[in-house]
């Protein structure tokens, strides 16, 4: 079996004002990236990109996005990303830069990387906390970054519901 091989780019949207991050949307990113590629590589580049270009995941709270493109042409996308300077959503222009964290062959590897990366960030945050409440909060967040057994129970329920159908 032969499949289309893709590359997934795990990126982080860096904005000055954190709140403007909440404007983040799949469509916004899609259009912005397309425009950036067209600007950097012309029609040829954008046409190659469009083949299997998709925004797979967007998190408006953390600014993490996951972009898919063909494995053969991911460099076109990759090289265009640094030239993005703003995102536009509903008439609002948000100046930003896009920081590519990881390039993976599957979503899974990207997810794994993201887990590692986020935990690391949280760990780094912990010593810089100023107030006690803050420290507490962050500690709790760090602790919650693991899966417990309860996941299995939940899953089992789901599976049973499944079989009943």
């Amino acid at each position, binding site marked *: 079996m032969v499949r289309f091989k893709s590359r997934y780019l795990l990126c982080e949207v860096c904005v000055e004002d954190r709140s403007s991050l909440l404007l983040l949307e799949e469509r916004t990113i899609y259009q912005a990236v397309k425009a950036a590629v067209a600007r950097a590589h012309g029609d040829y580049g954008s046409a190659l990109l469009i083949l299997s*270009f*998709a925004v797979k995941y967007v*998190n408006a709270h953390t600014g993490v996005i996951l972009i898919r493109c063909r494995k053969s042409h991911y460099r076109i996308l990759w090289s265009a990303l640094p030239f993005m300077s703003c995102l536009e959503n*509903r008439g609002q222009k948000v100046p930003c830069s896009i920081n590519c964290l990881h390039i993976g062959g599957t979503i*899974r590897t990207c997810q794994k990387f993201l887990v590692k990366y*986020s935990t690391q960030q949280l760990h780094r945050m912990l010593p810089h906390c100023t107030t006690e409440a803050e420290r507490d909060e962050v500690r709790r*967040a760090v602790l*919650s970054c693991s*899966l417990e057994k309860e996941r299995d129970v939940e899953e089992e329920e789901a599976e049973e519901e499944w079989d009943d159908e």
Partner: protein
Amino acid sequence: MSGAKHRMRNKKMRDQPTSVTYSASGWRNGGDTPAGRASDFHHAKGQDLPQQGGGWVRGHQSGGSVYPKELPKYITSTYFARARSAEVKAMLKAVNKTTGSCHTAGALPKHMRRRAMSHNTKRLPTRLREGAQRMLEKSLQAAKKEKKEESKAKSRKARRRHGNLLLEFNRRQRKNIWLETHIWHAKRFHMVKKWGYCLGVRPTLKCYRACYRAMSSHCLLQDLSYYCCVELQGPEEQLLSALSRLTSKDTGPTFAAVQCLSGRRQGSVVLYRPDQYPAQPLGPVLFLWRPRSEGSTHRQLWIWGHPTLKQDLLSELQALCQCSEAVMPVPEPVPSPAVEAVAVPTKDPPQKPVTGRKRKRAEQDSDGQPAKKILGDGTRSPTCPVTWKSPTTGIVINDLTMEMVRYRLIGPLSHTVLTEALSPATDCEEAAKSGQSCFWWPEYSNQEQNMALHREQADVFQLLKGVYSSTEIPAGSVLGLTVDDPRITLPRRRVRAQPDLQQAIGVDEEKRRALTLQGVPEHCCQSALWDRSVRDNVTDNKLPEKELNRMRSELLVPGSQLTPTPLQGRVPMLLVHQPGKQLGQEMPSWGVGWDLLLPKGWGMAFWVPLVYRGVRVAGLQMSQKHSQHKGAPHFPHDYPDCPAGARFQDEQQAELMDKFTRRPPAKRTNYIKHGCLAPFRCPWQQLVEEWVEIVKETGKGSDSRTEVETAGAPPSRFSVLRSRKVLKQLSAWCRPSSSRGQRLQRGPQPPPPPPLSPAAAAALRASHGQGLAWARFSLLAKGRPELHAMVCAPTEEDLRLLSRDPQCAGPQEPRHTDHFRKHVKSARKARKSKRSDEKAEGASAEKATTKKPDAASDPSSGSADQPGSVPEVTSTPASVSDGDSSAIPALAWPPVATPDQDPSAAAPAAAAAAPAEAERLVLGLWPEPLPSVTSHCSRVTLGWVTQGDFSLTAGCGEALGLVSLAGLLHVLLGQPPERRGIVLLRNPSSLQYRFAKVTIEA
């Protein structure tokens, strides 16, 4: 996306994190993000996020679109951390769960899969073991639920041990009676459970033609033991007076026929309910009188009938003979085998084995009741009465069901098979004769007169060797005989019995001529089989196969014949000649044969030797074909006026309907389009009534006399015509006037019947208006008639067509339109939508239990086309038949024709009115009530075919069926005398009419 695919996808994406955005948009990129889920997830996630006092402010609205979410003014590390941790959690969940199939085997890459992983979880990698274990348990439980655990208390070897096997067999024949040859048949035949018996239908090997060849040139064997025998005993006059009420002389010889009454011939009659002739027939039976014993008027009569007939027959006989007093069967005394067990060892002590057997016997005794093979009727409780006595008339009725074995040999060489397989009983030595024994033969042979009779019977039997064909023997002859155990003369391999006429030429020429001309002398018809005591004695003292084999093994010369014949091996039997085709002029006495009547228990002992003489064995299917080739009606298929026949019709309808509905709807024949009203069941009553109406209407102007007579007749049930005189008349009328067949008649010429004229026909119609006539149809050209093919009257145009070109295929029926199609479809659609609604409701309910209630599935969404909205009938269907039916000038159409339009218009309306009824509609079948059956098609229907096939005897398609007498006369009158007796046949699933010649054989 189809349901299954959707489910699969849902399952796969269940653990995948979806985008978290603040505007719930249905936008999809890449085409594979389920948009619905995004918003869902958002809600779920939103709850996790901190609600920071008044930190969330409402954003401004621009361009009319709502800016739904509040944006935080400032950011805290708490918020940051929470968002991160939530994301990490989601990602972790996605990462830890394999996205592939949930089957653990599928989750593994191919190169890691190993055999039998699903059975032994230890073969799996540790991380997958848990899930696999769960799956395994689940599947085990499901399997348990599906089929109950088979109790395998005993090993196969134990189960197959003789005693246990017998117990198992006895258990299995508790519901349906097994014939004695059951095991033999079950190994070679397709078996069915029918009429309370297990019977073979046809052999598993292909032998249709071979069986036909055997019937017509050699010999075919059938086990007819399932036929029921009822014994009547009593004074001759009493019996005859009682039985005469059941029969009528019109239908041929009755119980009192001289030849039959003397016991020389077996007779056959059709029985009616007492004094009801010609209405309410019961069915055909065979009967056999025991020859008179000197100076006694006490007679014995056996009536053999089909099992479906037995209950009716028994109750009628009981009422007639006033035999109300049931004689309770005596609890069986320990029968003579016990005596035999003592007697045998005393008689031949050197043969008694020393070891081995003793142990086994002891073992059986310790078991208590040894398993005993069931002989006779295993389904009847032993306390059920089988004998009824009449206190006034002295008549005793005995139910001898399964008390005797009846084998039928069909074919011209069946007598050769018999003479080869059987040998008359040898006399036993003087020593045995003088000594006291429990066997019947020594005692019987002690009397000189018995031995003289036996020698005479043996002589007659030997004469059969020189007979060329069984046809030469007078029909229905009976020969009593006592024969040796045929197992002793069993050939080493199967041989084909051939007549040896060279040897027989010149020997006993005179005697043989006497036999063929006069039949078996009267006293030779006597047999010890008539005595119950002898029968029981023979049955009880049958030498088991094991003993016989042991005796054979002790012979000095291996393979030589056992001499002298053991004392047990003398069996009384009756040979009954079975006449072949008696009526009609073609193939006279085809299918002739002999019936063997044997005491019960001896079935297999005679069966195997007969089979070893090269006979073919056939089942129910062939017996039907036998009667078809003979042109005789087959019980119960062709007796729709009998109660058993009516029951059979019900069963057949259900069976055919079941077969029809088993096909996918698109592959079913649309019988409506073929203009076939009743493909599965023939509405005889309706046919007859309609023909009476038609005749009345047409006869109104011309013949007032008929009208008066028919008007006086009360409406009655249809009946099949069986009066010999009327049938003879009809058969003469059916023949074209120039036929050469008429001159071929043998014997004294009967007075010629009156020629066909309207007056004669009217007279006949007046007396038998509700009659059906049994007729044979032979196709003139191509075609193979099938079951329930329609018999139709040709129009004048058709006849002209035939005279122009005798080989023409025949006219075509115009295609009918199916007005019910719409209703069937709409009803089905309504049903389907209803079902899907229910399903959706169920699914949503389920979802509600696991997740929060969802408004996605609205139970009322699919209710727009509920069954209540079956569309109304728009137009009355155009009558197909009306245009063509006017082509028959002889039939000025009475108003009967108009119901053709009315019911077809009314029926859909009714269907539309009641949706419940619409559910019962089956595509391609006319719903009840049927419209006029006679005038539904372009040719008038006369009757239907009940048996039809390509006839190997005639070499063309042949059918047997019943036609309305009134209709037949109508057709005959309308045809020119030189071309009389031409009808049309049309199969239910075809539009092609075929010309056929109708013959009534009488």
